């Protein structure tokens, strides 16, 4: 089991003929993902790594039966490309691009909500269900291993760091999902946690958060009612307030989004908060042992 994507997911790649699109299509195929079609306006009829390219998502879905999409289009094209994928009935729709204008992101989220589609991103590495099942996005396939730990994170390489340490410790993952580092993103912690809470394979969840916004505080509210253990790591403990730390969403402003507030909320919900990234795997192991001991 897994959340959102698995071996049945048939993937459409938007922007498949671009440098990033073509490179990652090959990487996703090598991982085992069922990439069934690509879209690139003006380039229909071509092939990329053996994947047929279509003019529109509608046409691609019609001919190849895609169920989900990953977008390798530049920020300026995201609004149109994401709405096209949603309109074609695809879900989840994964948006990799960073620097997407926030009003465009709000428009996409409103359209997705109206159509019942799940959007992941923008500014994310994507989503991966290990064991060669599905990878929609750009993470390096070798760091993953199938297992009982769900991971949901705001940042990319920090996810890789933590996932690699879990794998090294023999703790495989059910699904790993990156929410994206922007202030307005589709799937959030709460939506991911709801899915992990219903997933039979997932026995513990790792939440990788950071300063800025209130997503971690909202996650804490939901975790209070969860029966699976959650371990968190929060980046930015020492970040100065008022400075944007790389991600558009990673800023402590107007007294909101502080490390302390997030840590306090999560601990009050029974979450084990790791001091450092390398403390996550031991905490997950301990949580899993407690879980099986009590059963």
């Amino acid at each position, binding site marked *: 089991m897994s959340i959102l994507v698995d071996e049945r997911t048939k993937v459409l790649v938007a922007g498949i003929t671009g440098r990033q699109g073509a490179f990652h299509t090959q990487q996703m195929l090598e991982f085992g993902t069922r990439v069934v079609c690509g879209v690139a306006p003006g380039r229909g009829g071509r092939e990329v790594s053996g994947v047929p390219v279509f003019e529109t998502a509608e046409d691609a879905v019609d001919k190849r039966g895609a169920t989900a999409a990953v977008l390798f289009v530049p*920020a300026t094209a995201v609004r149109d490309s994401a709405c096209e994928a949603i309109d074609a009935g695809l879900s989840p729709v994964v948006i990799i691009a960073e620097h997407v204008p926030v009003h465009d992101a709000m428009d996409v989220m409103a359209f997705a909500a109206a159509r019942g589609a799940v959007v992941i991103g923008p500014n994310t590495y994507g989503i991966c269900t290990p064991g060669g099942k599905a990878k929609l996005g750009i993470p390096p396939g070798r760091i993953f291993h199938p297992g009982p730990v769900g991971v949901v994170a705001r940042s990319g390489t920090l996810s*890789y760091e933590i996932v690699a340490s879990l794998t090294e410790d023999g703790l495989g993952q059910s699904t790993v999902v990156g929410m994206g580092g922007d202030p307005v993103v589709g799937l959030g912690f709460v939506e991911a946690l709801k899915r992990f809470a219903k997933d039979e394979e997932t026995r513990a969840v790792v939440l*990788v958060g950071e300063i800025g916004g209130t*997503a971690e505080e909202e996650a804490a509210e939901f975790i209070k009612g969860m029966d699976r253990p959650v371990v968190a790591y929060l*980046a930015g403990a020492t970040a100065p307030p008022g*400075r944007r730390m*790389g991600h558009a969403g*990673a800023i402590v402003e107007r007294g909101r989004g502080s490390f302390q507030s997030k840590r306090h909320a999560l601990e009050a919900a029974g979450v084990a908060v790791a001091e450092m990234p390398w403390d996550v795997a031991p905490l997950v192991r301990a949580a899993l042992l407690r879980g099986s001991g009590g059963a």
Partner: protein
Amino acid sequence: MAKEVLRRAGVPVPDGRLCRTPDEAAAAAAELGPIAVKAQVLVGGRGRAGGIRIAETPEEARGAAAAILGMDLKGHRVETVYCEQRLEIDRELYLAITIDHSARRPLLIASADGGVAIEEVPEKAIIRRMIDLPWGLQPFMARQVALRLGLPAEAHAAFSDIAGRLYAVFRERDATLVECNPLVICDSGRGAPGRLMAADARLNVDDDALGLGRQPDLPHTETATDLEKRVRALGLAFVELDGDIAVMANGAGITMATLDALQSFGGRPMNFLDAGGGASAGPTAEALDILLSTSPKAVLINIFGGITRCDEVAQAIIDVKQRRAFSMPLLVRLVGTNEQRGTEMLRAEGIAAFTSMREAARAAAEASRR
């Protein structure tokens, strides 16, 4: 600037004149009556810094302008002043449109307690109204808010009109905040019903929209140090901090985590530098070169290469080292594709290479204390 955008969008704002000389300011006061003379600089807190003076007469306006013009306000020389009509203010309100990140929607915020920072207004005195996309702010929503603000009935239509125009500016201008603080009811004492006016305004525009070339007529007002400007010009995220260990990592989250790790070992980072998740050698080397020019006590590079090739990163580091002879300890953590080759290349050049982030951070903190 924000008020000018609102004025063009049809929001009533106080009348004013842009003046370059004390004589022009005197003429403005003769025309407009009592005025406020305001320094035209794109920095906050100019009132406290002496950049705003009140003038009742043309002579006072001349004196005020003479004092402010040429003044240095937080590193900006004042070249022009804005002479703005003073209003007979009866009530100060707060009205803004911003983004609710959790709800992923626009949000109207209003309060009957205007004129102070909204953070200082008690929660129960703040009115919030979520706005659905794509329909946007509807007149009935504005009427609801007007009623809850306790506005007189004759002001409701004007309030709705202003709220609608603010919302249009918010959407059309890629704003993250359009704020009228205060929105005032003024001139009630002259027999006519009071007028609503945006006495002061603020417009924050989305950096990403500006970065894509939208809103070309709006200025990009970023407060950054010279060093920050140089590194950001390479397209990399950079924040200057006050420590002595130069830091570079790839990805915002892992860079923050690297700073946290350094400090947990007693190290003091001098910067946040995110070389990007798919760090490419060119800008990385240039950024590293700039960092080295600031003479840190140690340099910590933490690369978890996903797609990044470690041998390319190693080569970039070696190139910089050969170009710029430096003596401070350089500690590199390198994991990813071709990791072993990258590590060997660095070792051959006498650069400490680690596979563990913890050990690299600890070593950097120790090196900075030597």
